[in-house]
């Protein structure tokens, strides 16, 4: 995740784009929380090859959607702070109704940080870019998987379940999700039995929890690449 340099977005002059705004998002980056690229990313006009990560050959998102996302980012950023806080995201009306809204918002703020800058914003959304067939062909096997790979999409979903970040969906966590998803008409006991059964179904090593591999396996029949993609993020 850290490796992905936002600036790799092809021909678009991203640094230029960012500097054109009054508040460059870079400096306002959450300190410490995601420390790695901090020094290199410091100046807004930093060269596209910021901090010399090995970049995936394919950009995070296409140029057009990057622009689009940037506008959206600015629109969400109420006070032009250059970053988004939880409040900014919570004000999206539809998100409040979404049973998973809170968890989604939380996923924008890894490790409990309080703000997300534009690169972080894009990085999260990049999970939902449709998979390009052409990407796979010329991808260097040594490169890390692109964010929109099947596994990364699954991982994103998985961490929405796994609240305590222990790498497993416990029965309790499953129950919590179920409670969000299932209508109120189902009683608590029924929910519990559903949760039990769901965990049992996926749990292969019998530890009473669903690990990521088990999670991925339970969904192997599903076309995640298609399902977890949004067209406009192409």
């Amino acid at each position, binding site marked *: 995740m850290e490796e992905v340099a936002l600036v790799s977005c092809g021909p678009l002059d991203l640094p230029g784009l960012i500097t054109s705004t009054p508040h460059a998002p870079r400096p306002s980056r959450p300190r410490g929380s995601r420390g790695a690229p901090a020094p290199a990313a410091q100046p807004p006009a930093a060269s596209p090859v910021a901090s010399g990560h090995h970049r995936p050959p394919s950009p995070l998102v296409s140029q057009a959607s990057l622009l689009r996302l940037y506008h959206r980012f600015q629109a969400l950023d109420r006070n032009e702070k250059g970053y988004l806080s939880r409040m900014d995201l919570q004000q999206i009306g*539809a*998100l409040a109704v*979404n049973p998973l809204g809170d968890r989604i918002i939380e996923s924008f703020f890894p490790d409990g940080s309080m703000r997300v800058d534009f690169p972080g914003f894009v990085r999260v959304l990049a999970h939902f870019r449709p998979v390009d067939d052409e990407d796979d062909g010329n991808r260097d096997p040594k490169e890390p998987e692109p964010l929109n790979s099947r596994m990364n999409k699954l991982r994103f979903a998985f961490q929405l379940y796994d609240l305590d970040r222990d790498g497993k969906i416990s029965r309790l966590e499953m129950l919590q999700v179920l409670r969000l998803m299932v209508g109120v008409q189902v009683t608590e006991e029924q929910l519990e039995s*559903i949760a039990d059964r769901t965990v049992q*179904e996926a749990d292969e090593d019998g530890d009473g929890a669903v690990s990521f591999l088990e999670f991925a396996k339970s969904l192997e029949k599903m076309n995640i690449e298609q399902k977890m993609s949004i067209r406009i993020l192409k």
Partner: protein
Amino acid sequence: MLRAALPLLGLPLAGAGTTEEPTLELGSPGEPPPGLALFRWQWHEVEAPYLVALWILVASLAKIAPRVQAGLLDFLLFGSLISAVDPVAVLAVFEEVHVNETLFIIVFGESLLNDAVTVVLYKVCNSFVEMGSANVQATDYLKGVASLFVVSLGGAAVGLVFAFLLALTTRFTKRVRIIEPLLVFLLAYAAYLTAEMASLSAILAVTMCGLGCKKYVEANISHKSRTAVKYTMKTLASCAETVIFMLLGISAVDSSKWAWDSGLVLGTLFFILFFRALGVVLQTWVLNQFRLVPLDKIDQVVMSYGGLRGAVAFALVILLDRTKVPAKDYFVATTIVVVFFTVIVQGLTIKPLVKWLKVKRSEHHKPTLNQELHEHTFDHILAAVEDVVGHHGYHYWRDRWEQFDKKYLSQLLMRRSAYRIRDQIWDVYYRLNIRDAISFVDQGGHVLSSAGLTLPSMPSRNSVAETSVTNLLRESGSGACLDLQVIDTVRSGRDREDAVMHHLLCGGLYKPRRRYKASCSRHFISEDAQERQDKEVFQQNMKRRLETFKSTKHNICFAKSKPRPRKAGHKKKDGVANTEATNGKSPRALGFQDTAAVILTVESEEEEESDSSETEKEDDEGIIFVARATSEVLQEGKVSGSLEVCPSPRIIPPSPTCAEKELPWKSGQGDLAVYVSSETTKIVPVDMQTGWNQSISSLESLASPPCTQAPTMSRLPPYPLAAEEPRAPLDLPPDPRPSFAFPPSLAKSGRSRSESSADIPRQQELQPLMGHEDHTHLSPGTANSHWCIQFSRSGRL
């Protein structure tokens, strides 16, 4: 790829319409390379002669069909009807091959809307023809186009209105399930008629009616109605389909109805294939601009090839008015040929084609809870991401719609009870459990004794803590039954029998009970919260059982009355001493006898009472109570306290119910056959001490519901009598007295159980009961078993 293909497609369109062949070749040469060209493409040099030649060719070809006398409008009319694609056959093939869902849905959707559009087009053209081409103004063409929208959208609106009505109506048919299928058919038909009346698209109206109401109606109507609707529909559909193809066959050989014209036929065949392909390619190209997963070439080929013409085209062409359309006969012949050709040739070859092209199949796998759950979460995640991105796409709108549906539509159109089941995750869970249960039963397992299995088929019970009790009872009961039968066959030396049976029962019953307990301990804990529900379920169980038993009871009373009392007397004498406590129950019995005009007068009055109380309480069998009449008076005083609630003359029936309620083992057995149940009831309690204790305690915790319930039960007429009566006489001969020797302990225990409802005596009674169980244990069991055996034996005799 697509972008590259676009200019190729664009060019032919821009060029002359007739020049299909050159454009096809255009693709191969590509752009002329800068150097020496091996192959050069210079269309402009030959353009004029080429076109002239083509036109002449077309004109001469046209001469093949000189006989068809028809104007442009007539041909438009024909075109409109022959364009009606009827992919029924294709859909059947797709279903068989399990083609991928996208393709299936697209073809299916086409078939849904195509008929309607075709009919509208046909109507417009037909009216033009009837007006005569001379009278058709320019505005009429505009009107025709406009009417296309009015007719189709209006029809859809009518359909939705009726869908709403239908859903709303079925919400209130809980008590009249029988009319549900009728409602579905009639309201759908009403939609059809209404649309027809307003000269809107009736087919669209019906289609939209079905689309709109399905979710709600399906949830509202009963399962049987659903099946009825489904299969009636299918039957009707295939009937109609068959009839129309029969008509097709008949008119195919009726040469008076058609006139052959090879040019028209061949031309039509060629052009429908060609334009179908063209239409598919163009439209999918447009569609692909907006699709996340584009439709690929194979899909397009299959869709093009799937353009079968069927019943609709033929029906429409038959409807043509010969006076207005002089070329009708030619059209009929052409249509028949086209239909035959497409259905037979294409219909038969599409399956191999699908297989050969390796069209993506949809994997059919059993639904898993994980998948269902995760799919839901994914939907929500995507909707949320779309919100964040600020793009109101598919997921956004679907989320919106679902919320609207949940908030308003479902509330309005769905029954409360149905509403719950509609949750999809719950639905999957439910179905999984049903499947498990079925497979379990298929393997010969006993559902109720399988500890791990929670039956979702009775969600209310499941949720209820009390369920565990009933289930427990049921299990024990069932186990007991089996054992009993074994014992029945033995039938010798009673004591030995009893002992054997006791051991058998112990062995057989112990396990299931244990297991169950373990799995369900949770239920016990949470009991309080659901007390009310529990009570309800419990009462229902009791009621059911009471009814079944009543029938047996009455029969027995009338027929056996004499033998029974005697036996009772024998036994009772032993147990009489204890009777006091039992008396409490007897008053009811008394009342019952009076009213019920039971013949069996009291022979052994005092003793009887004790017995009756026991028996009644334990097992509602009618047999025992007969004798009570005399003794009851005494007890009334005591009983009144608890029983006042149900003072109706026929009090006897209630008394068993009360007892039943108190006595847990009874509640579970409603399902069992009458005889069996009576047997089991008696035996089970005795043998399964632990289970009993449990159940008693649990039951006590439930507020004793019997009193309120009792009166209603008592009033129920003993309708099942008739069925039982033939057996009753049989009962008489075999009244082996010995069997009825009730050990005192039994009497005591029985009493105690019965009393549990009564406030005061309960505690006192219970303690002896508990104490007894350790050592007395066996004796009551034996007594009961005897009794049971007698009973069953007599029945068989």
